[in-house]
């Protein structure tokens, strides 16, 4: 079975760990427990043609306390940048992280606009949002709480990585 490494990146508190928990275990918790370092989870995706094992790297939030670490991307086939719809700053930071990631790894980047279940408070215009989405392979509206868009996003990644 082929294995694919996927890195989950983003500012802190945007819901990286929650998205993985929802995807792998189907659980969501309101409590915020910030991640330290890296944790790797595995999940097998059953595509109609074949099976893929995703190795999902949950990486601690990139912020003023912990910088971007290029080495985590080594051997990755794709990365997801998670942003929080209730915090526009997280989208700016997501964009910065995207640029840093692209510099070290020529692999597809996927954008997750997370916390879809909450009312959006950012005030990007549609065209600004389109500009930000542009360099990504695809963007998904997700909610780690309701599960919306989560399965879809990971399946999409599994699919493009096997094509």
């Amino acid at each position, binding site marked *: 079975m082929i294995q694919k490494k996927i890195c989950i990146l983003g500012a*802190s*508190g945007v819901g990286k760990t929650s998205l993985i928990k929802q995807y792998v275990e189907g659980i969501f918790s309101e409590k*915020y*427990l*910030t991640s*330290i*370092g*890296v*944790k*790797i989870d595995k999940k097998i995706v059953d595509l109609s043609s074949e099976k893929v094992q995703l*190795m999902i790297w949950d990486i601690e*939030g*990139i*912020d*003023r*306390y912990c*910088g*971007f*670490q290029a*080495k985590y991307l*080594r*051997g990755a086939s794709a990365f997801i940048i998670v942003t929080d719809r*209730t*915090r*526009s*700053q997280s989208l*700016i*930071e997501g*964009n*910065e*992280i995207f*640029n*840093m990631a692209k*510099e070290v790894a020529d692999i597809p980047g996927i954008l997750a606009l997370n916390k879809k279940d909450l009312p959006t*408070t*950012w*005030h990007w215009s549609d065209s600004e949002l389109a500009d930000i989405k542009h360099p990504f392979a695809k963007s998904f509206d997700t909610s780690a709480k309701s599960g919306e868009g989560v399965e879809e996003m990971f399946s999409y990644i599994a699919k493009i990585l096997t094509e």
Partner: protein
Amino acid sequence: MDTSLFHDLGLLDCVIFKRIEPTKYEVLYNAQDWLFELLPETKSQKSFRFAQNSLYLEDFLIDAEALWISKQPGSVDSGIWSETLPSRELLQLEASAMVCNQQEYLVIHKLKDKFTQKQQTLQIARELLLSNDKITEQHEHLHAQMDELLSQSERTKAFQQPIINALEQTDLGVAILDSNLQLVKGNPALQTLFNDTHIALKLPVDRLILELFKKQYPEYDRVFSTRSAWTGELCWLNPPEQGKWLKVAIHPIKNADQALQYWMFSVSDVTQIKFLLKRNEKLTHFDVLTDLPNRQYFWQQLENKIKKNRPFYLLYIDIKNFKRINEVHGHLIGDQLIKDLAKRLQSVTRVDDYIARIGGTEFAIIMETDYFRKQFASTDQGQCKTFVQELIRASELPFYLESGSQCEIGLNVGASAFPTDSNDAEELMKYADLAVFAAKKQVKSSLEFYSKKLVDASLKRIEMEDALQKAVTNKQFELFLQPIIDISSSKIVKAETLIRWRLSDGSIIAPDEFIPLAEQTGLIVPIGKWVIAEACRFLNELKKTHQEIKLSVNLSPRQVADRQLLDFIKTTLTQQDISPELLELELTEGVLIDNYDKVHYLLTELRTLGISVSIDDFGTGYSSLSYLQKLPIDHIKIDRSFTMSIQDNEQDQGGNSAIILAVIAMAKSLKLGVIAEGVETDSQKEFLLRNQCHIAQGYLFSRPLPFNEFCKLLNTKN
């Protein structure tokens, strides 16, 4: 010695492998059961190979192998990672690869206390960061919204529906005050801020906030007199019950003429966040980003120093144009820069000095001067100057960014002296704040000492600003025209428009005296619009009398950054029914470099419209050929200082004539027009003619003239 102590201390909670050959290892030390659960392959045989049971560890082996192969004594760390064991236990691990006595080792530590500590601190720090971010965002969102809505509304107490809606929707307490700080409107959230305290406030909420601000922040007067924006935290005590921490943003709202319309106060209750901070002692006194003492702690230290009664300087340091650095490089890099800068400042300060981070981009230093002198001698300012120069030098060395680019930081420094300026902590801070405000006006990093003169100058500046503000409202400006001549035919080919400020007593102020102030205050935007509108009106007049000629208008950096500029130009041209080919815009070299992206966009749009562009004061800045080649530019204007250096005797002209010749040649090769500015003598004119520069401007031909006189001259010449 009994190893169980080491065990209990958690020092031996690790496993040690020895690398026998590439990919093959031997277990040297293992007192742990978790190892077999995590890596079953280590269990039975004497030596083992990794069997994909820990992906992270095996990924780290790539870095480890690089070290081992090098055989260089040393170690590399893996960074922390977590593993869930089959028994569902969660482990936090960190591995190190080492070369020691020419042997290769791999050590895996199980982290316990170290992890818990790090986790707890980061947890609080991040929760704080998130709540702070959210609140800041709310304030900023409101500012943007209100700037748009309120700046248009006339001064009236009856606000339009959209404003009322916006105020009702936000969770922030909002008070809108008029320019005399009288409440015009408050929203429901403002009233409910104090609802949970069961205390009848003696003052209306807006008064209370003003009161607290005045008591707790020495910059109170300066903020209002200079119409500056401010954000900070206010503490409201309510003994014996718990008090409140309020985050307050004060924001001046100005109309299109940059006249102050309202003050908007937005307030949020951050007591919870502060409470969170208190759970961790380190966070109460220290700033998490830089590890320096924070504002609260600094105040205590300042009071302590004063008690010791030894002379010192209080230095207030602000990073120059940090907002721009954030915009250009992003916030993550912005934070990293602050961190690095803090380290550099710290490395320059001496043991007796005391440094703190007292605001987002602000640091403060207490600099002890010589103990043995009771009074300040004149050389003490010298001591302080030398020290600040070191600080500035340290900050101006380039910072190398991860992206590969680099960045420089400038500092505004204000200084007040204890005990000569004051022996009161609050006053010292207030004075240092005033001084830093003055230092901000300088383009380069600089130090200002607090003095009576400084205060007077700042008052004078405020007066001048007021006068200029009024001039904008009452349109006390005139636009003069200076002809630009084709010296081979003596015909007027174009004219540059030049603004004059006419005071009510009839006297005239030249642009170099008020344009810099207008630029700093933003008044340049309405002034610039007036100039464009007036120039278009002239063009329309000239059209009526069939004397069509091109007029050029100067653009300042702020105008270039103004998003509405293009639209304004388009509408004005249409209104006056003027062909865009008759308008030219002049930019200085500095503008080109500082705002390259914006300028590129603007100039491309202008070219599409048919408006031409010239570069003013050419030769004084640093524009390289590459800029000129990449931007759609039509003309360059040779700065007057070069023209003036052309002397009668062609032999002793030194390098300046060479520069002019080079500029002319370069312009030719780039197919740009050249205009010589500041031509005052016939020999200069002859020189230009001889060297194929036919377009010139200067007193030799004409001074700047009022419109009527210019029309007369145009009539006789052309």
